[in-house]
């Protein structure tokens, strides 16, 4: 681990004053919360901040449900949120996505805010034995483009980066129109989750839109998405404790045997959590006929770009959407 100073501020305003920069990979001052991802990256020299600002004990960890919807404190753990009764009953998609993530030990430690800002699993990002990684070392190139890229993205890619955003939670949240509340020295603001992460473009080291000092304080999910029929489908090489090969988060409103409105997002395939408005439009008014679902899901392939080993994801993600819609439709 690169030698660093661990700051343990007494309260949030003290924490903000350090000017820590979340969501970019070249910052000298960073935050640490649950640390499940950060510690790995520090140990392997992928991130080398000089100063680490601990958020332990000073961030909201409450879980509240009210007329406005759901509010998850940024320090609530994955385990707490997954098991929370109101979440389970009204936002089962979130609970399901969380329970399909990581292991019980990790879920007991990892926080909401940290989950959203965790880094890609791209092996070239995580192994400093590779010089080329634009995300880790801006301008150094991308070893994944023509390398072992079975894990990599087919949506939102650029010629500089094809790394997948690994969070399951973010995929469910983006489907449910969630937002994040940010606090900085300049005050509070709310950002739709779909705008939190940046596309890699030619600056893949800039991962999120947080300003210096800013921290995620809470996640809010609007009441309008409560109680929807939903399903989080995760395809992977083993039954548990693995990142998605492909995942699909689906929430639908039905009108008899037809879909009135659908929300569809994908994981494991995008450089950020990937919402699919074109698929949603095609599903609106559709019945559950497999051919109809299949046709709507095919629109997910628009704009995809495979790099060889990951070409299969383009087909698999369409099948995952169909299956998730079918399962969600069959739920009461």
């Amino acid at each position, binding site marked *: 681990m690169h030698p660093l100073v661990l700051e343990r501020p007494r309260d949030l305003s003290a924490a903000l004053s350090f000017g820590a920069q979340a969501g970019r990979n070249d910052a000298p001052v960073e935050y640490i919360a649950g640390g499940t991802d950060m510690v790995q990256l520090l140990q392997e020299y992928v991130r080398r901040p000089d100063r680490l600002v601990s958020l332990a004990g000073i961030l909201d960890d409450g879980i509240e449900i009210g007329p406005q919807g759901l509010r998850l404190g940024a320090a609530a753990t994955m385990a707490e949120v997954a098991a929370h009764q109101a979440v389970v009953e009204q936002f089962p998609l979130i609970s399901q996505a969380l329970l399909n993530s990581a292991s019980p030990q990790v879920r007991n430690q990892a926080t909401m805010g940290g989950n959203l800002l965790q880094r890609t699993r791209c092996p070239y990002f995580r192994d400093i*034995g590779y010089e080329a990684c634009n995300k880790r070392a801006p301008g150094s190139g991308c070893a994944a483009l023509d390398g072992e890229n*079975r894990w990599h993205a087919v949506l939102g890619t650029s010629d500089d980066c094809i790394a997948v955003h690994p969070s399951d939670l973010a995929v469910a949240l983006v489907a449910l129109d969630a937002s994040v509340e940010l606090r900085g020295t300049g005050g509070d603001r709310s950002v739709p989750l779909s705008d939190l992460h940046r596309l890699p473009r030619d600056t893949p080291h800039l991962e999120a839109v947080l300003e210096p000092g800013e921290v995620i304080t809470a996640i809010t999910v609007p009441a309008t998405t409560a109680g929807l029929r939903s399903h989080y489908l995760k395809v992977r*090489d*083993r039954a*548990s404790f*693995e990142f998605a090969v492909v995942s699909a988060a689906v929430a639908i409103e039905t009108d008899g045997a037809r879909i009135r409105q659908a929300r569809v997002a994908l994981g494991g395939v995008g450089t950020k959590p990937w919402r699919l408005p074109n698929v949603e439009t095609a599903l609106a008014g559709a019945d559950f006929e497999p051919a109809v679902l299949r046709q709507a899901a095919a629109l997910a392939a628009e704009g995809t770009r495979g790099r060889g080993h990951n070409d299969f994801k383009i087909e*698999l993600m369409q099948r995952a959407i169909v299956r998730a819609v079918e399962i969600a439709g069959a739920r009461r």
Partner: protein
Amino acid sequence: MTAALIGKSVSRVDGRLKVTGAATYAAEFEVPNLAHAAVVRSIAANGRIAIDTAEAERAPGVIAVVTHRNAPRLAYQPHKGLPDAAVGERLHVLQDDRVNHQGQPIALVVAETLEQAVHAAEVVRVTYRNEAAATDIKSVDPVLPTGKPAEWEIRRGEPDSAFEQAEFRVDQTYVIPRENHNPIEMFATIAAWEGNSLTLWDKSQWVHNVAEEIAAVFGIATDNVRVISPFVGGAFGSGLRCWPHVTLAALGARVAGRPVKLLLSRREMYYGVGYRPHTVQRAALGASRDGQLQAIRHEGHQETSTYEEFTEALLSATRFLHSCPNVHTRHRIAPMNVHTPTYMRAPGEASGAYALESAMDELAVALNMDPVELRLRNEPDRDESKDLPFSSRSTRECYRAAAERFGWSQRTAEPRSMRDGRSLIGWGMASATYPMNYAPASAMARLLPDGTAEVMSAASDMGPGTWTSMTQVAADTLGLPIERVKFTLGDTRLPRAPIHGGSMTMASVGSAVQAACRKARDEALARAGANNLEEAMKRSGQIIEATADVTPGDETKRFSMHAFGAVFVEVAVDPDLGETRVRRIVGAYGAGRVVNSKIARSQCIGGMIGGIGMALMEHSVVDLRNGRVTNANLAEYAVPVHADAPPVMDVIFVDEHDPHVNPLGVKGLGEIALVGVAPAIANAIFHATGKRVRQLPITPDKLL
């Protein structure tokens, strides 16, 4: 007399120590004045290095930075232990400026704390002069291993013409990727010198070999090296050899003049110890219409390093598992810029069986014959490769018992004909075999006047239950309650045991323990003139010690000795998403006498789960451009987790009394339990989907 203990279900005697954290593993020994080491490893696959250590030497807490420029010249006297490659020379560490594989150690930092050592290692500046590297097996021409070509290419009958003339033929290529053992305990060594004597606390499957290797490397007497390794947190063969990090720990301790601990990180586990090699096999079977095998042609080649020729028993079972008059096997190696592979659970046998038993299944499909029936029609009367009788062979009983327990008669032969809801259900099976290995071993038994006994041998227990089974054999032989017998292992000061591999520990160490206990017992009874041992121990008032050595006779000249088995598997495959889950495995084994039914079952279940890993997920993904392992961690290198373990894992031990193999009558179980599982799963997936995947692991993308 107490009731016979051999064959009983006895819980692990070391279980409590392990689950309470009281068992001490290599990295956990407390040694005064300990310094910590970290290794700098090559990020080039071939070339020369130049090193700048100035910044590292100035880093806080650093005691020494050792590179090829300042390292003591090590003796590296000739030494080849059983697990070493027969041809080639082991990697010499820090002796010159050449690197020939990714992850090769190129510098060692010793510091006051682990963190300081790791940090200083990170600021060692290395420049590489890269040279062309062979990192893709497709670009390497495989060659026969050096020497004794008759061992590597074997023919009987007229395999080529018999294959051409056969009415039914299968000829396919099967690929196994590189796999790493991934034991949960990472390798660690603590080295402490006192003058010219060295003590090593190490993770090892063979302490005596570590002592001999390190003595040869440093040019000191073997007696001057003591190796202590009481507990091993899984190894699966990765601890058979003495790897370069043991030398590095001892070197660091010598340079620093202090005891040094070296612990490999998880990423280093993919570079610092061996692995199951990437293996390409072609299997061609020819048969008559009634399913009689007419010809087998089976060839395979595997990656090895540029400095050692690693070989394993890839094709040996092909020559005797099924009856066939015309057989050709050819085993080649592909020397590459990689580090040397090593034995991984059922080395060779599990890999070879994947190709052979998949091809048998393809032949059964071609013949429209039940795969069990095909095997029964080719059941040999004797070992046709050695022209010897089998000491015992219970294959038929295994097929029958496992098929019956599984309900095989309910199978419909047509692929995609069995379903459960959306899932395609597949039933598949394969045969299994592993040689009975029995090697010279020694043990000592010490009877104490208080009515307890201490029994010992320098064996190892990487998980199969050596601690427990040896206690059982000793208590059974002595006729003492098991609580009064204490067995000790894992120290070169104890009587020599053979390598803890090749499924030979029960046969070899068990027979030695039995012999030593018999000898001690007879002596105690004779001395006291009693016929009750407890009475005799009390009456004599003295410690009675007996050491026994056992050694195999000429039985290998008279018999072919192997364990045999059959594995039946049910899979469910999602036809849209390509996910495969194993629902049931039934394995039946004829493995001689079973000493502890509980631990034996546990060992077989472990093999089944390992086979699920091999079939469905395990794959060290090597970047073909430069030889780095891209998934050198336990998140992206998938091994089965609890959720992957099928709800039904049934283990059947068929009754088998084999008086020829060894005094205990055991054949070993550790490795046969893995053999056959991967092909049985692959065959079940074909039955479920109609898709034959000939490249492991069978991940969802291959079934879309």
